[in-house]
């Protein structure tokens, strides 16, 4: 089956194409150069005048796993505001802050997203994450396994294990949980909280293991580098949400000692202590540090005003933040000598000084980081806002008048403390395509996603250009997933099942001997039941596939 998208304006930054008019050919789920000799074009779609991009990629979105299910359980009142009825094609569900898996897949696809990555898969809870991702239709999925407060790693580090052995454990964890990458959350801090510590600074020792967050970040970043895992260590830094934490964030960049790291939801880590309220923006300093250090990437974790729910592995921070929850309820968990989690509903208000400044800080970072290949568009769904707010966020980045009007609505003291009013920058469509397609594919090592070159998956989005980018990005005219039209003008027209993306770094199987003994001696499940095999994860994709990406260093950013 050969399809031609005729006459569209191709925006494909991976190949440097910015609005070039060209035909695009899709055959059997892949992008191809054109018809073979005597090959007939089965389907011709006229997209002249339309913008054609690769499917968007959300590289940090909490779409599946235990903490999301806790959030769903806690918030029937939120679901009731956004009921989703079943149709001939689609299952029923709920939307908004903690959507059902089915609705998550449909809505991402209808918005032109074709791959989403769950950033906080606890190894002990990996099977649930895969079960939930498996029940998320249409889009491709993948996950980053979480380490850094697990007792096995901290014991290795305390005992002075050599890097090679730590690499084996890291690689084993990624392989056994079917992950695409590795995340560290409040390094050592989740463990510290279990010992009744309430704060752990970058150079403060975990009270039991006497290792510091700096050492943990460095060790794990080095492990991934040596294992040639494409995605660098995904770092949720220490001191999330604490005024003055920008210094920790800057020090974390330095602490990686040149190893590439990705700083996630950096908005929550860019706070100063200036002003009467001892809360200020340090976005400029953070952006400047990113600009200066080419090995650093970040996603923003923009907040948007309204009700949402925060789901995090950072039990220490979430317990501290529980008092600010709205509605006032929260769940905190210590989990399996492995990690933790905290779920706190939040209502961000534009007339609240802190919330208003958080909003401005996120936008400042977007606009002050110069290289769109190294800053990614996220709201840390649902922690900053539900993912459905992306089109609005894109408009804030692309339209300075709209942005200034929005700035005029927020708490005046926050607006006064922000440099946002003076920032002229407007993102171009090309830059939006970089930060939502080409750059995430590159940073995750997905060679066949995020671009429209020959050999890519036929994940293609066709937009009607609009003076209002929010309208344009809310309901693309066509969304193709693996060559199938899955959505038209915001409505799902076919339900398919996406793939799961993983890497399989090499490791010495000898590590399983120690792990097997450790599990039998201390844990309450057996190693063999902890591991998730290839056949199992393939089965969980509901008919999607398992896509294994090579462990090799990708090129430096363009």
């Amino acid at each position, binding site marked *: 089956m050969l399809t031609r998208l005729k006459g569209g304006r191709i925006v494909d930054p991976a190949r440097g194409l910015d609005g070039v008019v060209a035909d695009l050919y899709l055959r059997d789920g892949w992008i191809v150069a054109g018809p073979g000799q005597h090959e007939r074009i089965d389907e011709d779609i006229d997209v002249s005048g339309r913008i054609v991009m690769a499917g968007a990629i959300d590289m940090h979105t909490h779409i599946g796993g235990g903490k999301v299910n806790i959030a769903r359980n806690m918030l029937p009142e939120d679901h009731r505001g956004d009921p989703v009825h079943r149709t001939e094609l689609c299952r029923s569900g*709920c939307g908004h802050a903690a959507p059902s898996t089915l609705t998550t897949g449909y809505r991402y696809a209808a918005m032109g997203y074709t791959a989403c990555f769950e950033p906080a898969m606890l190894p002990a809870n990996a099977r649930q994450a895969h*079960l939930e991702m498996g029940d998320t239709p249409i889009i491709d999925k993948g996950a980053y396994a979480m380490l850094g407060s697990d007792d096995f790693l901290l014991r290795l580090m305390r005992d002075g294990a050599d890097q090679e052995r730590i690499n084996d454990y890291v690689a084993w964890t990624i392989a056994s949980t079917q992950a695409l990458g590795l995340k560290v959350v409040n390094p050592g801090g989740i463990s510290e909280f279990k010992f009744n510590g309430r704060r752990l600074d970058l150079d403060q020792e975990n009270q039991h293991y006497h290792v510091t967050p700096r050492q943990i970040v460095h060790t794990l970043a080095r492990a991934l580098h040596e294992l040639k895992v494409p995605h660098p260590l995904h770092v949720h830094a220490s001191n999330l949400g604490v005024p003055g934490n920008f210094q920790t964030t800057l020090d974390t960049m330095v602490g990686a000692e040149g190893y590439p790291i990705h700083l996630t939801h950096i908005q929550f880590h860019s706070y100063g202590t200036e002003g009467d309220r001892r809360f200020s923006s340090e976005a400029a300093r953070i952006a400047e540090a990113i600009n200066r250090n080419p090995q650093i990437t970040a996603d923003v974790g923009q907040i948007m005003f309204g009700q949402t729910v925060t789901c995090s592995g950072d039990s220490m921070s979430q317990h501290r933040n529980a008092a600010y929850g709205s509605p006032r309820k929260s769940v905190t*968990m210590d989990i399996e000598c492995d990690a933790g989690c905290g779920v706190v509903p939040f209502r961000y208000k534009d007339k609240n000084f802190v919330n208003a400044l958080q909003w401005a800080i996120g936008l400042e970072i977007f606009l002050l980081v110069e290289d769109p290949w190294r800053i990614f568009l996220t709201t840390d769904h649902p922690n900053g806002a539900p993912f459905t707010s992306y089109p609005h966020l894109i408009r804030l980045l692309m339209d300075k008048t709209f942005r200034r009007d929005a700035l005029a609505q927020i708490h005046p003291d926050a607006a006064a403390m922000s440099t946002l009013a003076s920032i002229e920058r407007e993102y171009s469509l090309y830059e939006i395509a970089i930060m939502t397609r080409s750059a995430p594919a590159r940073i995750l090592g997905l060679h066949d996603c995020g671009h429209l070159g020959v050999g890519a998956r036929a994940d293609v989005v066709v937009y009607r250009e609009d003076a209002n980018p929010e309208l344009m990005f809310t309901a693309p005219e066509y969304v193709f997933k693996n060559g199938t039209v899955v959505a038209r003008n915001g409505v799902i027209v076919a339900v398919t099942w996406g793939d799961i993306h993983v890497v399989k770094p090499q490791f010495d199987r000898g590590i399983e001997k120690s792990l097997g003994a450790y599990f039998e001696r201390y844990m309450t499940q057996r190693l063999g039941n902890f591991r998730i095999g290839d056949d199992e994860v393939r089965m969980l994709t509901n008919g999607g596939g398992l896509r294994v990406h090579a462990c090799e260093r990708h090129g430096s950013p363009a």
Partner: protein
Amino acid sequence: MQAASLTDQACPFCGLACDDLTLVADDNGVRAAGPACARATRLFATVGAPVQGQAQAWIDGQPALLEAAILRAQQHLGAARAPLFGGLSTDVTGMRALMDLADQRGAVLDHMNAEGKLRNLRTVQDAGWITTTLSEVRNRSDLVVCFGTDVATRYPRFFERCVCVDDTLFAASPLQREVVFVGAPAEAVAAVMQTDGTRAAVTMTAIDIAVDRLPEAAALLRGLVAGTLPPELVTDLPLAALRTLAERLRAAQYGVIVWVAADMDWPHAELTIQALTGLIGTINQTTRCAGLPLGGSDGDFSADAVMLWQTGYPYRTSLASGTGQYDPVMNATAALLTRNEVDLLLWVSTFDPARSVPDTGAVPLVALTGVGTPVLPGAAVQIQVATPGVDASGYYFRADKVVALPLRAVTDRQLPTVAQLARRFASGLGAV
């Protein structure tokens, strides 16, 4: 058949889901040969018994061919305008298929353990809580308070696997711990003390409180922990013992309070649970303490997890309007049957044959039951089904809701699985 012996198999017969069992399958059925508890041994033998030569399906109480029973069940489902899917004692795999069918038919979903679970749910939806998981309890807890429960009756290997252990991560020698039973059944507590309680590192004591005084005791303990009780308080509850317990909780490094909501069978038991979670919150201002609300038996956390991720709501949710409508009171099985608001009960019970089917009166009953369940004379259709972990593979969520263990088919009795039947039913019926 060739005898097969498999190690490290998970047990689906209570929420602990112990996964260190050795299961042997041969012509005599499946038996647990490993470190299984009495409950697991009994249920593997009953539910895993051979089925050769027996009827596997019944229509109106009479033996029938499987295919005929499937068609009859399908007819009932097709005719029903307000079906109720109850029991739901299956695993993740069975539940996922049932959810497809439920959405198609606009069914109400309720689990046989919903009433107990609801007591916890109301607490979570109202205020939240701080909880922990089995391995954390095993390695960290220096004080374990079992409130209103001996735990072992429902979770036989809890102490063996999570409390009375030789090796822990953070202590060089066996971790010294105290276990305090509050208002737990005396005989059952005595049995625990005589077995698990003999370990040198573990001290077990009990505070005797009648079951009907437990709500008051929880409130009192909360007040003692918070230091908000009036000094002149007069009570005939064992105040001194509870005061000591409150002091121990405040002094412990990692206290754990265990409760079993299924046993808290009194009106507004969620207020008792909130007293416990409230005091846990208070303690966490200065030291660590966590709740362990045990559940997960009969696949209740497995079914619940699937419902949550697929609809956003826990069970007692109706899909009749085309989207989820959660109402824990109106959508209860007994209430729906009493009010004549449903016209079919699809009952699923694969784990414990002792769980009784509700009286449906004139409402047709289609029952998918595990081996060992007697023939139900009142059922319009009854089909014997495979049990996950015996002759069906799948997943089982453990009591802490974190670990989902793989269940494996260790024998093949040619019985249909719940998932297969649900898919058959759905494929033969159009959209509502």
